[in-house]
């Protein structure tokens, strides 16, 4: 575990200094700070627009960071030959991969954390909500963090056998698809009479990583929605994320073990 920890912390140190990530992070923070002035555009629903837009910025920026952070992680190590100095030490490949993944997750936690703090602070300054609302915002940020960790595991899985550019498009594609899987299946199961089509939709929805689960902002935007056992749902989707991340990591390890670097 020592090796995993050492690799993870080193990865964080490197990630939070990557210029391109910092630029994206800065743009994210900048966008967040102009949201309050944009939301006056929609009369009477400023609060919901503000929350919605802020979450959009947070989610999109985080996804971009998660992907760019992870797709280069292993190819860069190979290109700069750092990986050889590590793999020739008593470090198993799985330790290297898992260490890199945890590093990415930790770095994501820091960056999403920063943006969330900015978001919540801005929201507090402009709309003076109650503590429970701020708590809900924080909780949604946390769920986005789980989502982005899952996305990072997708990217790291593909980085074991694809080039960064290909991986970038695969990961972003899977993420976009993953954010519409639930609504898509919902629509098909509600409107499509074809049982084959329904089964296919169900299969695909069950198989692919499902990012839509983590978008729980509807009740935040539309207060009054009564949800029973919310916490159970949040635990379920977190558990789902961890299960899925484990699967992707195992698959990644299996491939990376045979990979010639």
């Amino acid at each position, binding site marked *: 575990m*020592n*090796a995993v*920890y*050492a690799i993870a912390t*080193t990865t964080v*140190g*490197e990630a939070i*200094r990557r210029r391109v990530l910092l630029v994206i992070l800065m743009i994210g923070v900048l966008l967040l700070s102009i949201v309050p002035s944009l939301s006056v555009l929609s009369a009477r629903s400023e609060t919901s627009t503000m929350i919605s837009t802020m979450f959009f910025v947070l989610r999109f920026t985080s996804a971009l960071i998660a992907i760019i952070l992870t797709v280069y992680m292993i190819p860069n190590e190979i290109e*700069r*030959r*750092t990986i*050889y*100095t*590590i*793999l*020739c*030490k*008593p*470090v*198993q490949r799985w330790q290297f991969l898992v260490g890199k993944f945890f590093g990415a997750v930790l770095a994501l936690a820091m960056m999403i954390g920063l943006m969330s703090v900015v978001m919540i602070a801005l929201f507090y300054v402009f709309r003076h909500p109650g503590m429970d609302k701020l708590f809900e915002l924080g909780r949604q940020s946390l769920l986005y963090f789980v989502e982005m960790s899952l996305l990072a595991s997708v990217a790291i899985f593909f980085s074991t056998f694809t080039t960064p550019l290909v991986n970038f498009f695969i990961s972003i594609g899977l993420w976009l698809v993953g954010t519409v899987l639930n609504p898509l299946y919902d629509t098909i199961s509600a409107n499509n009479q074809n049982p084959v089509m329904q089964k296919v939709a169900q299969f695909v929805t069950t198989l692919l990583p499902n990012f839509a689960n983590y978008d729980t902002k509807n009740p935040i935007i539309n207060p009054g929605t009564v949800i029973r056992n919310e916490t159970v749902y949040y635990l379920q989707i977190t558990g789902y994320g961890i299960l899925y991340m484990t699967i992707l990591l195992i698959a990644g390890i299996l491939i990376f073990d*045979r990979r*010639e*670097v």
Partner: protein
Amino acid sequence: MAAAIETRNLTKTYRSRLHGKVNVVDDLNLEVEEGEIFGFLGPNGAGKTTTIKMLLGIIYPTSGEGYVLGREIGDMDVHKVISYLPERPYYYEHMTGMEILRFYGSLFHIRDDAKFEALLEKVNLAGDKSKTISQYSKGMQQRIGLAQSLINDPKLLFLDEPTGGLDPIAHTEIRDLILQFRDEGRTVFISSHELSEVERICDRVAIIDKGKIKSQGRLEDLLKGGRVEVIADGLTREFADTVKIPEAITSFHGDRLIVDMSEEHDLNALLDSVRSSKGSIVSVVPRRRRLEDLFIETVSKKEPAK
């Protein structure tokens, strides 16, 4: 003495779309003894790095077998007692020299700042331990690389082009360090194409080209067979024409004869015949063979047509 590295018919084949199957390393048989500095020479793309990676278990041989310190290659236990310094590696730039050592040390479960300090001292970086790698010069980066490769007190070190891209002063520093490793009883496996360096420090060398070993052995043995240059004045062209020595280069101008010949031939016979023709010997200069000559001879030898 036991073999530190031994390979038997080690082969690595890559499939390339353009050329079909390519044997990057072809039937490689190497033997490196413990405690020596072994030079693994070859032009760029000869298969040096591929061989090292196979020996380290980073890539897998297509066929053949290899042993490092008596264990089959890929054995994780071996990794505890060997180390590798890749060609021009990149270290995490945001870390200081000390942090780099702490990081690599932790991979061995070593947390011993005193040891790290000593290593930094050894590679002459004690004064720069708090600078980040991004502030290090190339030579300093190479030295921190050597320091990290010594963390586990390795019995066997693989150094890939250790002096590549460095200035002459840095060369000397690195060379001294490597010699010091041998004195400490470590085996050093150097892959390089910088021959003058290797010539100065290696005990034995192997020359590899296009994946195959072309020549292997003690440096003294390989470099045997130098040449001698004889210059004599006061001679006639008739005399010059009588000098027939195989593989010798003769030139005659005015009354001066210059003969460049292998030292295996009878030098005294030539000197006697010059004197008996009333000629005077100006100089007899023996010229030792250099590694470069050997290398060029070996590598430029055409493979016999199949």
